[in-house]
């Protein structure tokens, strides 16, 4: 099995603050990897670096065998293959749902309007959003907006999906519908790197969980093992806080 994504000693600082201090991580083809860790541990920054929204300071990021952090790489071409969904949805408010989803396929992949729309409608249908195609984002609930954001990323047929705490901005009763969509994606074999605070969800969906602490992957392993029997004291501390907050049943 070839590796979908390899991070090799990736470092990133914002001014004096070193956020990523040498991250090593491998995500296999069709693998679902969840990143957990406290706020500020570098989860979001790591995802933004993989999508080349943030340039890294040193190290290498390799997607499907191609080093995307090499000099002179066409970033737009790389981003086409990597879908990212943000915590705050970031839908385009001046466009209908359908236009949000068709914009990049039409403008970047050069699909005809008809092809782009049928691809979009098919995806919206699959995720229960067909009747929202003509609506504008501000008419949708948070959960619906986030599902549209996922569909928008999927419409580019990415090799790899990055999900950055996609349920953190949602009201509790809207979380389930979004997690359901991600579960379905996992069953179709989509390779995913997911930063999340939803431990129960991570245990359920992930092939592997990585605990990010202070800018490095401190510990990783199968969900049951990492969540119930962590080796590192820092991991234990973090999980204890999560359990105390009622976010993970033991």
């Amino acid at each position, binding site marked *: 099995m070839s590796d979908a994504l390899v991070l090799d000693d990736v470092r990133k600082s914002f001014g004096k603050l070193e956020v990523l201090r040498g991250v090593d991580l491998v995500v296999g083809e069709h693998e679902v990897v969840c990143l957990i860790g406290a706020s500020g541990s570098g989860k979001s920054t790591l995802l933004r670096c993989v*999508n080349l*929204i943030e340039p890294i300071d040193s190290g290498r990021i390799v997607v499907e065998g191609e080093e995307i952090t090499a000099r002179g790489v066409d970033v*737009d*071409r790389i*981003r*086409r293959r*990597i879908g*990212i969904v*943000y915590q*705050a949805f*970031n*839908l*385009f*408010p*001046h466009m209908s749902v359908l236009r949000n989803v068709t*914009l*990049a396929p039409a*403008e*970047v992949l050069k699909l005809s309007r008809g092809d782009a729309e049928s691809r979009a409608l098919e995806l919206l249908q699959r995720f229960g959003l067909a009747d929202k195609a003509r609506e504008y984002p*501000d*008419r949708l609930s948070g959960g619906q907006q986030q599902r549209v954001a996922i569909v*928008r*990323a999927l419409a*580019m047929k990415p090799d790899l999906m990055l999900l950055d705490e996609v349920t953190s901005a949602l009201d509790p009763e809207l979380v389930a519908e979004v997690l359901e969509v991600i579960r379905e994606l996992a069953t179709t074999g989509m390779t995913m790197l997911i930063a999340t605070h939803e431990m129960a969800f991570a245990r359920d969906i992930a092939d592997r969980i990585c605990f990010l602490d202070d800018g490095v992957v401190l510990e990783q392993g199968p969900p049951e093992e990492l969540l119930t029997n962590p080796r590192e004291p820092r991991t234990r501390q973090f999980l204890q806080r999560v359990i105390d907050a009622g976010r993970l049943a033991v």
Partner: protein
Amino acid sequence: MRTGDRGRSIAVAVASTVLFFGVIAVAVVTSPGWPEVRQAFFSGEQFRESFPTIVDAFWLNVKIFLIAEGVILVTALVIAVLRSLPGPAFFPVRVLAIAYTDLFRGIPTILVIYILGFGAPALQLHGVPNSPLFWGVVSLVLVYSAYVAEVYRAGIESVHPSQEAAARSLGLSRFKSLRFVILPQAVRRVVPPLLNDFIGLQKDSALVALIGPVEAFRQSQIEVAGSFNYTPYLATALLFVLLTIPLARFTDWLIARDRRRSLAGSAA
């Protein structure tokens, strides 16, 4: 609000308005110089005589500002976009855009018109018109593009950076992100202040008269010179106001609509 209250507040508004303007009118009409002023500024006969020629000349103002507005919409956008280009490679472009806006917002419009209107034709450039009218319009475009560029820039900067991140992460190029995602949102937000600048431009179209073209203001000067009566100035003022009011109300309406929308949006 109950109907009785409503009727009462309308009555109060009417009464206070009548009183306010009544006092001013009485003060003006009973002033010692009023008979002469009425003769010099409010002559019905002079108004009837001069108004048609001024209206004719006013079409030149309309032409001047319509052409200028069309050009300004484009050049100002280009300047604003150039100024917002990121990265060290575009530093000289940004400096140029900043220098331009600083320069043309700093010089009084009337000076730009004089300098270009008298200076540029003297260059005898090939293929460029030498008429004062042409250079008058160019001056207005240069000055107002600087203002409108700043309006556009405020709009561009008001669009949250996460919108550009979302567009870029879908693989859209910087240019396409700007064109499809940033600018449509930016322009929508700045329509009211932009129209406000255009109201200023409409009035300033009269300044072009100072280098020769006979527009409404110049025509009224001619009428005044022939009759020693100032009524034509008031006739001209009336025309400008009549043109400005619809645009001002339209701008107000747009602002009110945007406010309603954003309130509805935050309630949802």
